[in-house]
C-alpha cells in the first residue's frame, strides 16, 4: 500500500512540469551578479563640468563604459561584438562619447549621461591597418569641428553632431599610412603626417571643410622607419628608424618637412635596440633603452638631449596641461610592496608637484598603465588623481595618497573555473553568532509570513531580505551541511587565481601566478590536485594551475600548486616542456594527490606528481592508459597509447613515449571538425537502466570513452549568411576513444555550425543552424546498450547473459542503438551546460546560454527522443511531453532572471551535498552565480516555509484539545450528576 502511494506520488511529481521560477523578492537571495568591464585600454576623463565626475574607458573585452570617478561604479556600459575591437575613444562636443572600432571602420557616438547610442557611421576601409581617431578638443561647443578618422587606407572627416561623413580621402593607391593628424586651433587647414611604405614621410595639408589637398610635401628617408612614433609637439614627431638605433625628428612646420637624425648611441652609452614608449609628453619623449627608461627632451631645432633616466619598471601617463604653459605627467614605480606616484612638470623634471607612496597588494603585480587627471583644489592649487591599470588587469583610482576605489577587472576574462570545499567548521574556527532570543526569532517569522501573504510594507520587505541573508549564514567561511557554501576558483587570462564565495561572490583570496622562467605566465587551466577525502584528512585540498610562458603552444609550461583554504602557493615549478593537453588520471596516491599526465608538443607525456609512488601506480596501469588528440586543422583524430620510457639525456623516468593506436581521418574536402566534446569525467550516473512504459528495460550505454565530434562542409564553416543549404551539411559522430570505432553517425543536410553541444550520461544535445528552415535546431541523441537488452526480468538478470561473468573490455564490439529527435529553437546559443547533482538522481536541466546573454533552464524531458505527438496514457503518466516542433522558451525559467551575463563565455555546474540542488556559475564579462533545484527542493524545506504558521497551528491545536477536554469533562460531570 505504502509503495503504491509512493509510486502515485512519484507519478504526480513527474507529471507536473516543474520549471525554475522565482518570485521577485527572492531575487538575490541565492544568486549574485557582478558587473565588470575588462582590462582598460583607453581612458578619457570628463571632469570639467560640475556634477558627476566620470571617466570613459574602453577595454580589451570590447566594452565601452562610463565609470563614476568617486566610487568606481558603472554608470553605463556597452559590450560590442567580439570582432568589434575598440581602437580609440574620445569625447566630442562635451556630450558625446566617440568610439572607433573594427580597425577604423565603425564610428559610434554615445550619449555621455545615459549611454544611448546617438549615431553610427560605417567608414569605408580597403585593408587591415592601424587606425587613428582624432577628436578635436574644442572649447566652443557651438562650433562643429570634424572628427578625423584614419583606417584601412582612408582618411575621413566626420561631423560630430550627426555622424555624417563630410569628406573622405582615399590613400589606398599610394599606400599612405597616416600617423598623426594635426589641427591648429582656429585654422581650417589640417596637417596629416604619414609614411609611405615606411620609407617616405609625407605631409598633406587638407582643407578641413571640403577635404581637398591644399599642399603636399614628401621626403624620402633612406634608412626607413620602424613605425614607432611619438609626437612631441604640435609640429614635431620623433620616429625610430628601421634598425631601431636612430631617432629621427620630423618637423613639419607649415607643411615643410625636415629630418634630424640622432643616433641613440649619442644619447646613451652602449645602447642596444631602442623602443619608443607610448606616453605623449610635450616636447619630450620617453625611450626604452638598455632596460631603462630615458627621457629625451626635444629642443626647438629638433635637437635631442637626455634629461632623466629611470628604472625599467616605471609606467607613465600622457602629459596634461596644468597651468599656463606648464605640462605635467605622472609616473608610477614600484619599491617593494609600495608604489610611488609622482607628478612632475615636463619642463622641469626636478620640480615634483606630487609625491605619494601607497601600499599595494603584491598580488596585483606591476603597474601597466597610468592615466592622469587634474582638478583645482579649493585653495586654487592643482590636485591630481591617477587611474592605474595593474598587471592583473585591476583598475584603481589613486587620489591623495590612497586607493579611492579598485575594480577587479581580471574577472572579466575568466579562462577556467573549478569549485572547492570550504574548511569544516571546528571549535574555534569561526562560528558566527546565530543564536538570538525567541522573540526575535518569532518576529522574524511573523515578518516572513506577512511577506508571503503580501501584507508587508516596503520597509518590512527590506527587513525580510536582511533577515533572510543574515539567518541563512550563507556568507560564513566554513562548510555547511547542505554544501551550499563553496569556493569558486576562477583562473583569469592575466594569470591570477581568484577564490569567490558562493554566498555573496566576494573574493576570499586571490593569487597572481609567478614563475622564474618568465615574467608572468598566462593562465590556461585548473585541475583538482588533491581532494582529501578518506586519507590525508589533515591536509588542505589543493588545485593545480597550469600556466604557460607566452602565448605560443610550444612555450614552456608552469605548474603551480595552490592551497585552496589559504590561497597560498605550495610549490610551483617550471616544467621545461610545453603543455598541449593535461589528462587527469583516475588514480590517486596515498596522500590523495591525483596523477596527471601532461602531453607536450614533441609527442611525449610527463607524469605528475614526480614521486616514486606515483610512478609505481602508473606502471601498474601502464597498459590501460589511452588518450586521443584532435587535429582540427588536418581533420584527424588520433588515439594514443603508452609505449616506453623516454630516451635521451634530458629525459627523466617520469617521461614516456607514446605510439599511435588508431586514427579517424575525415575527408578534408567535405568535412571539417568544428566541435568535439566528451562527458565530464566526474559525472555521477545514478541508474544504468531506464524503464519504459511497457515495463521494458533500456540499458543506457554509459561509457566515459565516448567522444562527440561535429564536422561541417568546409564551405559551411563560415558565418550563417555565407552559404546556401545545398552547399553545407553537418555530420555528427560518436566515437569510442579506446578503439577509434565510430559508434554512431548522423548527418544533417543543409545545416551548418556553429555547433554547441552538451554530453551527459548517455545522451548528447547539440544546437546548430538549419539553413533550409532558416532556424536553429536542437537535436538529442541517446545511446543505449543492446547487448544487455535481453535481461528484462530478475531471473534473466541472474541466470541470463550479462556482463558480470563475461569479461568486459572496451575492445569488444559494443552493440548499441540510438534514438534521436530534433526540435527548433528560437535563439542563437553561446554555450550549453547541464546541471549536475551529487548522486545523479535528480532530473537534469539543460542550461542554455542564449545570444542575449541570459541563461535558460530547459528540462531534459523536453529533449527526450521518446516524445510523440500523442503520448498514450501510460506515457503521459511517465512524464512524456507531447511532441512539439519547437522547444518552449518560458521566461520564468531564465535562471538569470532580470540580469544579463554580458559577454557570456561559459557555464559551470557543480553538485552540492543536497541531492536536489546544484551550483551554477556563469562567466563572461560579468559573473553570475545561482543555486538551482531542477526538480524543486524535494529533500529540504524551502526558504519560504512558514515556521510561524506551523507554530500557530500547533498552538491552536493544543488549545483546541484543552478546550474540548475541559468541555468534555464538564459534560461528563453533569452526566454523572444526572
Amino acid at each position, binding site marked *: 500500500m505504502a509503495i503504491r502511494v509512493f509510486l502515485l506520488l512519484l507519478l504526480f511529481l513527474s507529471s507536473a512540469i516543474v520549471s525554475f521560477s522565482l518570485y521577485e523578492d527572492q*531575487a538575490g537571495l541565492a544568486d549574485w551578479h557582478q558587473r565588470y568591464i575588462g582590462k582598460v585600454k583607453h581612458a578619457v576623463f570628463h571632469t570639467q563640468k560640475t556634477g558627476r565626475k566620470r571617466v570613459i574607458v574602453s577595454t580589451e573585452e570590447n566594452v565601452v563604459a562610463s565609470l563614476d570617478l568617486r566610487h568606481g561604479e558603472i554608470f553605463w556600459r556597452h559590450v560590442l561584438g567580439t570582432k568589434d575591437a575598440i581602437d580609440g575613444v574620445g569625447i566630442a562636443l562635451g556630450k558625446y562619447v566617440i568610439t572607433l572600432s573594427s580597425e577604423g571602420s565603425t564610428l559610434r557616438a554615445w550619449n555621455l549621461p545615459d549611454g544611448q547610442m546617438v549615431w553610427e557611421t560605417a567608414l569605408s576601409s580597403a585593408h587591415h591597418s592601424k587606425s587613428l581617431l582624432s577628436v578635436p578638443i574644442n572649447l566652443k561647443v557651438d562650433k562643429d569641428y570634424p572628427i578625423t578618422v584614419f583606417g584601412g587606407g582612408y582618411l575621413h572627416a566626420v561631423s560630430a553632431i550627426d555622424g555624417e561623413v563630410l569628406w573622405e580621402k582615399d590613400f589606398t593607391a599610394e599606400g599612405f599610412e597616416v600617423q598623426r593628424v594635426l589641427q591648429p586651433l582656429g585654422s581650417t587647414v589640417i596637417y596629416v603626417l604619414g609614411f609611405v611604405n615606411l620609407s617616405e614621410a609625407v605631409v598633406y595639408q587638407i582643407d578641413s571643410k571640403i577635404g581637398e589637398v591644399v599642399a603636399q610635401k614628401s621626403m624620402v628617408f633612406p634608412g626607413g622607419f620602424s613605425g614607432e612614433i611619438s609626437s612631441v609637439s604640435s609640429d614635431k614627431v620623433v620616429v625610430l628608424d628601421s634598425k631601431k638605433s636612430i631617432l629621427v625628428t620630423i618637423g613639419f612646420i607649415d607643411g615643410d618637412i625636415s629630418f634630424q637624425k640622432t643616433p641613440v648611441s649619442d644619447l646613451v652609452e652602449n645602447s642596444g635596440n631602442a623602443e619608443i614608449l607610448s606616453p605623449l609628453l610635450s616636447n619630450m619623449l620617453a625611450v626604452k633603452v638598455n632596460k631603462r627608461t630615458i627621457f629625451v627632451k626635444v629642443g626647438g631645432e629638433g635637437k635631442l638631449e637626455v634629461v632623466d633616466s629611470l628604472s625599467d619598471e616605471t609606467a607613465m601617463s600622457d602629459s596634461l596641461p596644468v597651468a599656463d604653459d606648464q605640462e605635467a605627467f605622472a609616473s608610477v614605480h614600484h619599491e617593494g610592496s609600495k608604489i610611488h606616484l609622482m607628478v612632475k612638470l615636463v619642463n622641469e623634471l626636478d620640480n615634483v608637484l606630487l609625491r605619494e607612496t601607497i601600499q599595494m597588494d603584491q598580488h596585483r603585480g606591476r603597474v601597466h598603465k597610468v592615466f592622469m587627471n587634474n582638478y583645482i583644489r579649493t585653495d586654487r592649487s592643482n590636485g591630481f588623481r591617477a587611474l592605474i591599470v595593474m598587471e592583473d588587469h585591476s583598475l584603481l583610482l589613486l587620489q591623495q595618497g590612497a586607493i579611492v576605489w579598485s575594480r577587479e577587472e581580471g574577472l572579466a576574462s575568466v579562462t577556467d573555473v573549478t569549485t572547492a570545499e570550504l574548511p569544516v567548521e571546528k571549535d574555534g574556527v569561526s562560528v558566527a553568532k546565530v543564536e538570538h532570543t525567541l522573540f526575535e526569532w518569532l518576529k522574524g517569522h511573523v515578518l516572513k509570513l506577512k511577506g508571503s*501573504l503580501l501584507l508587508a510594507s516596503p520597509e518590512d520587505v527590506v527587513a525580510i531580505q536582511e533577515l533572510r541573508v543574515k539567518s541563512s549564514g550563507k556568507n560564513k567561511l566554513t562548510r555547511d551541511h547542505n554544501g551550499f557554501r563553496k569556493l569558486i576558483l576562477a583562473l583569469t587570462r592575466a594569470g591570477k587565481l581568484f577564490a569567490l564565495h558562493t554566498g555573496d561572490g566576494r573574493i576570499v583570496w586571490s593569487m597572481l601566478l609567478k614563475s622564474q622562467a618568465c615574467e608572468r605566465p598566462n593562465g590556461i587551466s585548473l585541475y583538482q590536485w588533491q581532494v582529501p577525502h578518506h586519507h590525508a584528512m589533515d591536509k588542505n585540498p589543493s588545485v593545480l594551475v597550469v600556466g604557460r610562458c607566452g602565448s605560443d603552444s610550444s612555450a614552456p609550461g608552469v605548474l603551480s600548486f595552490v592551497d585552496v583554504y589559504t590561497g597560498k602557493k605550495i610549490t610551483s615549478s617550471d616544467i621545461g616542456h610545453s603543455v598541449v593537453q593535461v589528462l587527469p588520471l583516475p588514480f590517486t596516491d596515498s596522500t590523495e594527490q591525483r596523477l596527471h599526465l601532461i602531453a607536450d608538443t614533441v609527442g611525449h607525456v610527463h607524469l605528475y606528481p614526480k614521486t616514486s609512488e606515483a610512478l609505481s601506480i602508473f606502471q601498474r596501469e601502464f597498459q590501460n592508459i589511452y588518450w586521443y588528440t584532435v587535429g582540427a586543422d588536418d581533420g584527424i583524430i588520433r588515439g594514443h597509447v603508452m609505449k616506453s620510457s623516454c630516451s635521451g639525456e634530458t629525459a627523466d623516468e617520469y617521461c614516456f613515449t607514446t605510439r599511435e593506436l588508431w586514427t579517424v581521418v575525415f575527408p578534408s574536402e567535405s568535412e571539417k571538425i568544428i566541435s568535439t566534446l566528451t562527458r565530464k569525467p566526474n559525472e555521477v550516473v545514478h541508474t544504468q537502466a531506464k524503464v519504459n512504459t511497457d515495463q521494458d528495460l533500456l540499458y543506457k550505454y554509459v561509457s566515459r570513452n565516448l567522444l562527440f565530434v561535429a564536422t561541417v562542409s568546409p564551405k559551411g564553416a563560415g558565418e550563417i*549568411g555565407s552559404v546556401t543549404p545545398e552547399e553545407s551539411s553537418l555530420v555528427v559522430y560518436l566515437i569510442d576513444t579506446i578503439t577509434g570505432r565510430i559508434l554512431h553517425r548522423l548527418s544533417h543536410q543543409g545545416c551548418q555550425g556553429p555547433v554547441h553541444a552538451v554530453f551527459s550520461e548517455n545522451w548528447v544535445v547539440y544546437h546548430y543552424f538549419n539553413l533550409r528552415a532558416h532556424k536553429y535546431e536542437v537535436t538529442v541523441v541517446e545511446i543505449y546498450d543492446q547487448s544487455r537488452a535481453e535481461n528484462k526480468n530478475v531471473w534473466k538478470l541472474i541466470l541470463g547473459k550479462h556482463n558480470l561473468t563475461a569479461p568486459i573490455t572496451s575492445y569488444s564490439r559494443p552493440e548499441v542503438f540510438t534514438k534521436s529527435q530534433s526540435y527548433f529553437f528560437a535563439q542563437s546559443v553561446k554555450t550549453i551546460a547541464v546541471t549536475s547533482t551529487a548522486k545523479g538522481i535528480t532530473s537534469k536541466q539543460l542550461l542554455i546560454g542564449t545570444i542575449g546573454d541570459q541563461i535558460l533552464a530547459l528540462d531534459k524531458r523536453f529533449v527526450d527522443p521518446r516524445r510523440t505527438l500523442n503520448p498514450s496514457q501510460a506515457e503521459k503518466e511517465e512524464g512524456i511531453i507531447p511532441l512539439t516542433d519547437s522547444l518552449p522558451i518560458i521566461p520564468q525559467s531564465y535562471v538569470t532572471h*532580470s540580469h544579463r551575463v554580458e559577454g557570456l563565455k561559459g557555464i559551470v555546474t557543480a553538485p552540492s551535498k543536497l541531492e536536489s540542488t546544484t551550483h551554477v556559475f556563469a562567466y563572461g564579462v560579468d559573473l553570475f552565480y545561482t543555486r538551482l533545484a531542477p526538480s524543486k527542493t524535494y529533500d529540504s524545506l524551502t526558504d519560504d516555509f512558514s515556521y510561524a504558521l506551523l507554530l500557530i497551528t500547533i498552538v491552536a491545536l493544543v488549545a483546541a484539545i484543552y478546550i474540548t477536554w475541559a468541555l468534555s*469533562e464538564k459534560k461528563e460531570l453533569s452526566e454523572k450528576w444526572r
Partner: protein
Amino acid sequence: MAQIIRSSPVLAFIGLQICFIFFASTLTCTSGSEDSYTITGRVKIPPSNVIGHTAKFSNVKVILNGGDKITFLRPDGYFTFHKVPAGTHLIEVSAMGYFFSPVRVDVSARHRGKVQATLTETRRSLTEMVLEPLKEEQYYEIREPFNVMNIVKSPMGLMVGFMVVVVFLMPKLMENIDPEEMKQAQEEMRRQGVPSLTSLLPSAGASR
C-alpha cells in the same frame, strides 16, 4: 506629398501607391558596393506596462548571424548593418523583458541589395523592416495576492479546519440526533467501554 494628398483623392491614391513602392524598394534596403550591402530596420517597442522594464533603447542589441555583428539602436529605434554580403541572414533582437522572433533576411545580389524579411517564428513576411516583440517576458512568478482560501487550502489550514469541524460541528450533529437514539447509543458505548476524552488524557485529568 502631403500637399498632393490634400488636393485630390485620385492623386492621393497615386501618392499612396508611390508611397508603397517607395517603402517596398527603399526602406528595407539601400545600395552598397558590388558585394556588400546595408540592412536598415527599426525596432518598435510598445509602451510597456510591465513594472521594472522601461522600454529603454540603450539596452537593446541587434545581432546579425548569431553574434557576427552587433549593433545598437539609435534614439528613434533605427539600426543599420553595414557591409553585409548578399545572401540569407538572420537578425535577432535582444531586449530584456521582450521576446523577439528572429528575422530571416534575404539580401538579393541581383536586385542591388533588395532586402526581404520574414519572421522565422510566425513565418510572417515583413513589408517593412519594423521589428516588434512577439510577447513581453516576465521573469518572475507573480505572487498571488492575500487570499483566505490559500491559508485554508494549506496543509495546516486543513488541519485547523478539520479540528474546527470536529469540535464545533460534531456536537451540533449530535444534537440533531433523536434523543432516544442518542441515549441508546450512549448506553451501548458505555457497555462497550469506549473511552471518553477524559480517560484518553489521564495525566491531564489526574493533575486536576
